[in-house]
């Protein structure tokens, strides 16, 4: 996917990526000649499709971890995750998401919690001393 500033006949350059946490993605591109900026907005399905390729719009800032995609996205069979909790988990950096997910899942399993919600995540963070996760 590339963007062309038709007026300048210039290929636009990637400028910024924004992940709002609702499953969507925003990426901005800037014309190097006239400075015009456009934003590409993808819906959750489109975002998931890009994510499923194991690539990152805007380039990788850290190398891929082993089993990054599997650890981050495979539902292991533990408690279910509410949509809000999934969105919050999606904001955790890829390379630690799997570990963070497992910590919350283990916390829920040990307490017989069947669905992880943002409230459960807050409680777990406080109890387990996981501030920042």
């Amino acid at each position, binding site marked *: 996917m590339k963007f062309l500033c038709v007026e300048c006949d210039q*290929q636009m350059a990637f400028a910024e990526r924004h992940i709002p946490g609702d499953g969507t993605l925003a990426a901005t591109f800037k014309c190097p000649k006239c400075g015009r900026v456009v934003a590409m907005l993808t819906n*959750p*399905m489109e975002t998931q*499709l890009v994510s499923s390729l*194991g690539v990152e719009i805007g380039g990788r800032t850290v190398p*891929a971890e082993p*089993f990054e995609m599997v650890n981050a996205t495979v*539902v292991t069979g533990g408690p279910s995750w509410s949509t809000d909790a999934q969105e919050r988990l999606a904001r955790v950096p890829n390379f630690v998401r799997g570990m963070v997910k497992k910590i919350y899942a283990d916390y829920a399993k040990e307490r017989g919690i069947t669905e992880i919600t943002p409230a459960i995540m807050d409680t777990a963070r406080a109890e387990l001393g996981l501030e920042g996760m």
Partner: protein
Amino acid sequence: MRTYHQLTDPDRSGLADQIGAQRRRVAEQLAGVKRIVAVMSGKGGVGKSYVTAHLARALARGGGAVGVLDADLNGPTIPGLLQAAPTPRPPAVGLDGVKCVSMGQFLDEGAPLAFTGPPAESFVWRGAMEASALRELLGDVAWGALDFLLLDLPPGMQRYLELCDILGNPPAVLTVTIPTPESRDAVRRAMRAALERGSELLGIVENMVGGELKGSAADELAREFEVPVIARMPWHPSLEEWSALASRFPQAAVPRPQAPGPRP
């Protein structure tokens, strides 16, 4: 207005480079593997996983270093057949020292394979997620030096085609069938597809021979595709019969996986 291929400035996302790096990672991890063989059928229930696991064990008992990749992501059985316990750093090591990796090692007991993501229209992205998971099972495992890496494929052709893309070269194929005409017809389609994609057909293992299942699928397919029937396995094969299969297993090297360059 210029078109896609006429825009050649480098972009910061470098998506093609990221894909290229993924392929190189797979090629690097498989660099020590001498032979990669996909065990496939096109037909379900013919015993592919059973044959794969026991062939791997027999090859290992014969002195080979052997790994098995369980490419049946939705119905993984290899860890159970090899009695390989999950490990935080795959591959796990099972019976007779066979290394293995499987989606089963990432899932809770009895849990189906499911991905987080938008539930609506999930068919759009689920296939891509499975292909990425397969790539990680191949490329994120320290296989080390192996004489054989057997790829246990599920029924159908989807996983085989994904493997061809990820490996860069179509893997050699060992076909498993049962004697029946129904199996013959399904396996024929799979063999034809593998041939058209450029795979070397190593031969046929006819499984579940000598019981209620009637037919001559292996002989008919062998004639049609000019490949050998490597073994006919009874319902309860002995160790000697598995060893005989391993001894007849083609030893010739297969093409090395190639790391394709970035695609535009």
